[in-house]
């Protein structure tokens, strides 16, 4: 038995699809081809097998995701993760928030920022630069997007250059996408009796 996780956490939950994933043994050639470009090609996750229902989207999504989050130059990887976390907090995608909070903690060798974000939400005490990044990510993720000129000015005042701001827009917008798959198509779960 497992239960749905409802609070933000850095401990990555399992993910239980709300629709039936594609069965690997029944996958078409196009599906198998698209599945091979995902990062986890040894054991294909239920999430990726779910997305394999729309093989054309899956095929373009994985390389786009990797480019936005990992390509060299521009914003640091850790700061891109703050864009992902901000979006995931607005959309309450517990799973995405956990994965990217964990990555942020690994990349910075510190749980301080994500502890504060999950504990205090928007009121979290952050450095000036992280504050500007997080506030922008939150505002851009609202529906309709609420980011304005003041948010961009705050980013520039905090020292971000144009390439970094573009990367922040990309990572935040990308999680507007990812959240609407992960949070909509499945539930974050944890085995019952597992440590809270």
């Amino acid at each position, binding site marked *: 038995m497992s239960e749905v996780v409802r609070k933000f956490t850095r401990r990555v939950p399992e993910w239980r699809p709300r629709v039936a994933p594609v069965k690997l043994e029944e996958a078409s050639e196009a599906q198998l081809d698209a599945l091979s470009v995902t990062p986890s090609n040894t054991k294909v996750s239920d999430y990726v097998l779910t997305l394999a229902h729309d093989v054309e989207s899956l095929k373009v999504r994985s390389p786009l995701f990797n480019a936005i989050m990992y390509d060299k130059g521009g914003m640091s990887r850790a700061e891109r993760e703050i864009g992902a976390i901000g979006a995931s907090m607005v959309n309450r995608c517990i799973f995405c928030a956990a994965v990217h909070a964990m990555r942020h903690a690994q990349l910075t060798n510190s749980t301080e920022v994500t502890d504060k974000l999950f504990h205090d939400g928007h009121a979290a005490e952050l450095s000036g630069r992280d504050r500007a990044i997080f506030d922008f990510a939150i505002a851009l993720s609202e529906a309709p*997007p609420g980011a304005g000129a003041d948010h961009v000015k705050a980013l520039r005042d905090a020292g971000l250059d144009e390439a970094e701001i573009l990367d922040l827009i990309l990572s935040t917008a990308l999680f507007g996408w990812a959240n609407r798959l992960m949070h909509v198509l499945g539930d974050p779960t944890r085995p019952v009796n597992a440590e809270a």
Partner: protein
Amino acid sequence: MNENDTTLSLAGIAGTGPLADAVASRSNIFEMTRAAEAAVLRPREAGRWPHELRAALAARIAKLNGAGDLAGRYAAAAGDYAPVADPACDGSNDGLGPVLAFMDKVAARTRDVAATDIAALQDAGIEDADIVRLCELNAFLAYQLRLIAGLRLMAGGQP
């Protein structure tokens, strides 16, 4: 700038300058964004959702998010489904009631989406593959309209 590129043409990126340079340095990402747009708006295997309906749904999502010109661009390809692009249309005349209710919620109240919302589509006879297709369309639009809004802010205009 490529007039065929929805994202960049609507964002109004100028030909030169620091912003144009930043965009050029991520040209692979904008190239893949174009490919993703084609995959959700004009896929070869469209399932239950023909291209014109997809365009109408994209226009509707853009409108719900205050992105009027992106909505206009997609609405132009909506054909007979053009009325669906209006968020005031509830879809009951086209048998699209559950679909539009779902799409609106995913687009604008994402955090409130629950298992019951997926079950409602399944109860309406929509297959799982077609549910995933709806989510991918919605999710891509969420990305694209925020990318355009962000680029416009960088360019110094209104989002």
